[in-house]
């Protein structure tokens, strides 16, 4: 009987199954973690897992470089996620875990560059450029205003010519 279910019921059941699978696939892709964290890595303790995610988002995958270790499916990223979790379970603070990885790979491994003397330009550069551009614009506008003010008014002949020219313009 299982091999030959009643035609209509079998069809409907198959349809339901297909819809369930489709919805499941859509749900999974919607989480945005398709490549990264695997189910077997996730810690049983949700609080610890949340801290691990927090740290994982901060760390650069050394293989793909523009992904965090949480988003990357590189093997090294996976091993780093596991290491982060092992250290948290060994009651390291978030700071200690981050510091350990930075002590191995340098600041490069942090996706958010630290705030220190050598990165001042990085942090303030855009604001500086914006300020310089704003200053240049203000100076430019002011100077133009100065030029216009200093011009003598148009003579009668010039005014007449101007009107003639403007009047020539096709509507």
């Amino acid at each position, binding site marked *: 009987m299982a091999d030959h279910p009643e035609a209509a019921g079998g069809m409907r059941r198959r349809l339901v199954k297909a819809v369930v699978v489709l919805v499941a696939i859509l749900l999974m892709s919607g989480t945005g973690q398709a490549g990264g964290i695997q189910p077997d890595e996730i810690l049983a303790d949700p609080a610890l897992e949340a801290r691990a995610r927090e740290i994982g988002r901060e760390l650069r995958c050394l293989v793909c470089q523009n992904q965090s270790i949480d988003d990357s499916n590189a093997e090294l990223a996976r091993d780093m996620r596991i290491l982060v979790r092992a250290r948290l379970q060994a009651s390291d603070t978030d700071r200690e875990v981050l510091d350990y990885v930075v002590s*191995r790979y340098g600041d490069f491994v942090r996706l958010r560059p630290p705030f220190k003397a050598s990165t001042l330009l990085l942090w303030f550069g855009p604001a500086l450029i914006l300020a310089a551009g704003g200053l240049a614009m203000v100076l430019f506008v002011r*100077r133009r205003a100065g*030029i216009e003010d200093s*011009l003598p008014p148009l003579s009668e002949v010039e005014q007449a010519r101007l009107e003639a020219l403007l009047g020539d313009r096709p509507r």
Partner: protein
Amino acid sequence: MTGLPVSSKAPPPAGMSSGGGLRARLPFLIPLVVLAVIAAYFYVGLGRDPHVVPSVLIDQPVPDLALPPILGRDRGLTTADLKGEVSLLNVFGSWCVACRVEHPLLMALAEQGVVPIHGVNWREPTPEAGPNWLDRLGDPYTLVGADPDSRAAIALGVAGAPETFVIDAAGMIRYKHTGPITPDDWERTLWPIIRKLQAE
């Protein structure tokens, strides 16, 4: 075009000093200076290989390692093994194509016996893969430790294989080479460093 002769007729507008000189040329110089800075920035930045991450471990002691032996061997690799004489620590894997490229050079060095080479067998898919690779191609390593879960690789700040560390007699990391060692790398960079450290 009629706009241009204005300045000759009218008194000099504010902001344009009558002295001319540098002040008058400044608006043209600024973009040039900016362009020069950007050009220099890109020249340096684009010429760099983004995969060569400078190691922060130079002049630091080798991290604590206690690597188990690979399948079929009875000795692994520990930090203590890396003290006493200048040595090379080579991170490799049978899955790593570039490791195979540098392998003949490591074999030649091992034959000459100029410096002991120790291996970190990184992330093999199976316990047999590493030993099989060494059996087939030859084993240049004095000691080899297995690193299946990247603990040692991460402790050493390794981003990819092969990477080779030059370790001095005190067990300090003195240099890191990323990628396969070419004969040229050996002659120009690694061997001079090793010779200097051996003389210390």
